[in-house]
């Protein structure tokens, strides 16, 4: 029988050690066994490389690790129980969590119970058993610390999320504790143990980068949930480092080392993808909620405008029935000018919606009523272009024309209420068109520029809606004044 050279044995020893075989004397046995097999192949006339390759193919990828798992499974009752527990409760709690989440989204009854049970199973059964199994399979320096921090950090985090979802008190403390344990204790401990492993020296810089970016990302998450300032830059830096820097470098290092893609790497990519997706979806969902709650008052503004308009129309009918009015043309003039201005504003709104979304006039009218249906809600270019232009004081823009129309209506309305100071103040306030005040930071700019420059369309529509309401209020002031005067003259 051929005898292996010492350096060849060294290769086999280091490969088996890297496979993570730590149980009892299994490592020595596997080394000896592989050496014997290789010697046998060499005896048949192969070179060491060919022989070792053949034996490795026979063992298969992760074959050695599998033997260790089988051994543990066979001899260690606790390990057996824990592994079964881990598998069972992992699947059960995940499934319950998914169903609970669907129930929660759909507002079906029972979501709270499902989520509570699934989180409890995951944190108190699955997590400890999974960590126990991992601990038995992997023995590395400082691993006890890693597993303990992992356990407590995980439980605190899961508890925090559950408490937050269920709106129970104490979620802040739990989340804070969970994130801090993971960022300050768990991640550094894992990093240190990885750095102690000299066999993966070429990956050390990547590990540092990865740990750093994950820690930043998680802290950003924490800051976001706790509403501390500075969350956004942390999330941005963390996410960018993770996906745009760490992942490519890690992928390159892994590829340059192995000829096949490991399953773990694919999981890593998918994991990071979902990590980001989840956060992005969360952001969208939050802004949607905020947006919808803001849309409600806007529709109420329109309701107010319409209501005042009906009231005004009534006053006008009453006024037109009286013959002996001091100025019988004034209220007619008020009615015509107000309606004209109102229609002018309506036209501006339709124009910017048509230009922004590229839709028909009919669609624009519909979208004007329900601004949440505007597609490019944050378009700032079209409102600016239509209403004020890039430079202050552009007299060809609609905003400038709007201002002069407001001013001429204001003059008429003020004339109608010349004896009532209260009414005058109100009209002036409702139809304010003064230039912006000059401050240390900024120069005074015209009203239309101050109002509409780089304003997202959704805000421009809102602003114009409020303006329409103000026009109606001002009209009401003037008309009421005329009516009172009529009573006096009687």
């Amino acid at each position, binding site marked *: 029988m051929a005898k292996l050279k010492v350096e060849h044995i060294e290769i086999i020893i280091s490969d088996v050690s890297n496979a993570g075989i730590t149980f009892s*004397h*299994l490592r*020595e046995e596997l080394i*000896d066994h592989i050496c014997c097999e290789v010697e046998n192949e060499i005896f048949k006339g192969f070179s060491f490389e060919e022989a070792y390759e053949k034996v490795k193919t026979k*063992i298969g990828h992760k074959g050695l690790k599998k*033997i260790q798992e*089988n051994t543990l499974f066979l*001899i260690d009752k606790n390990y057996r129980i824990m592994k079964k527990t881990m598998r069972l409760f992992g699947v059960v709690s995940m499934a319950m969590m998914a169903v609970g989440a669907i129930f929660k989204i759909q507002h079906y009854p029972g979501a709270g119970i499902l989520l509570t049970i699934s989180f409890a199973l995951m944190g108190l059964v699955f997590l400890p058993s999974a960590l126990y199994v991992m601990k038995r399979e992997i023995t590395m320096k400082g691993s006890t610390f890693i597993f303990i921090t992992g356990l407590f950090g995980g439980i605190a985090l899961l508890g925090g999320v559950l408490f937050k979802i269920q709106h129970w008190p104490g979620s802040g403390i739990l989340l804070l504790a969970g994130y801090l344990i993971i960022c300050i204790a768990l991640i550094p401990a894992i990093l240190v143990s990885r750095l102690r492993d000299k066999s993966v020296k070429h990956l050390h810089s990547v590990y540092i980068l990865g740990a750093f970016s994950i820690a930043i990302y998680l802290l950003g998450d924490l800051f976001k949930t706790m509403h501390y300032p500075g969350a956004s830059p942390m999330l941005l830096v963390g996410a960018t480092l993770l996906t745009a820097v760490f992942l490519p470098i890690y992928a390159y290092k892994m590829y340059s080392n192995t000829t096949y893609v490991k399953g773990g790497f694919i999981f890593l990519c998918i994991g990071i993808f979902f990590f980001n997706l989840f956060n992005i979806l969360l952001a969208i969902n939050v802004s949607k909620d905020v947006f919808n709650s803001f849309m409600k008052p806007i529709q109420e503004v329109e309701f107010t405008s319409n209501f005042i308009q009906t009231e005004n129309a009534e006053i006008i009918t009453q006024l037109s029935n009286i013959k002996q009015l001091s100025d019988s043309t004034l209220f007619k003039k008020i009615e015509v000018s107000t309606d004209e201005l109102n229609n002018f504003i309506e036209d501006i709104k339709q124009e910017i919606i048509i230009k922004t979304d590229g839709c028909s006039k009919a669609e624009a009218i519909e979208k004007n009523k329900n601004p949440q249906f505007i597609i490019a809600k944050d378009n700032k270019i079209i409102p600016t272009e239509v209403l004020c232009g890039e430079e202050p004081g552009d007299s060809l823009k609609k905003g400038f024309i709007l201002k002069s129309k407001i001013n001429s209506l204001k003059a008429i309305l003020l004339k109608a209420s010349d004896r009532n100071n209260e009414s005058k103040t109100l009209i002036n306030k409702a139809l304010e068109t003064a230039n912006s005040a000059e401050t240390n930071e900024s120069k005074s700019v015209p009203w239309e520029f101050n109002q509409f420059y780089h304003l997202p369309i959704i805000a421009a529509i809102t602003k114009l809606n409020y303006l329409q309401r103000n026009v109606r209020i001002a009209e009401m002031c003037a008309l009421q004044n005329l009516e009172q005067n009529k009573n006096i003259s009687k």
Partner: protein
Amino acid sequence: MIPKELIKGSLKSLVLKLLSENSRMYGYEITQKVEELTSGQIKLTFGALYPILHKLETDGIVVTESEIFNSRVRIYYKLTVSGKSVAQEKLKELQEFVDVISLLLKPSFSI
């Protein structure tokens, strides 16, 4: 070659049989011996062998001793005193099993 499923249940007994006939054996030697005795009909993979050996060790049926061989450690297994009686019992069980199975498989000449 005999399919794995059929061997699975009797592996432990086969290993005990070999150990009771030899004073001490190491893993690779056991796989080779099985292959040799059955002229390659039964191939004992080490993935199946080592979990069983470790199980026997924790159950106190075998003990191990290590030796340096050609700049690597070699682990030998041998039966303990109590292990020897366990081995005999297991072999008896296996023999009975074989007998019963052959009884079942005997061609029936009844009409």
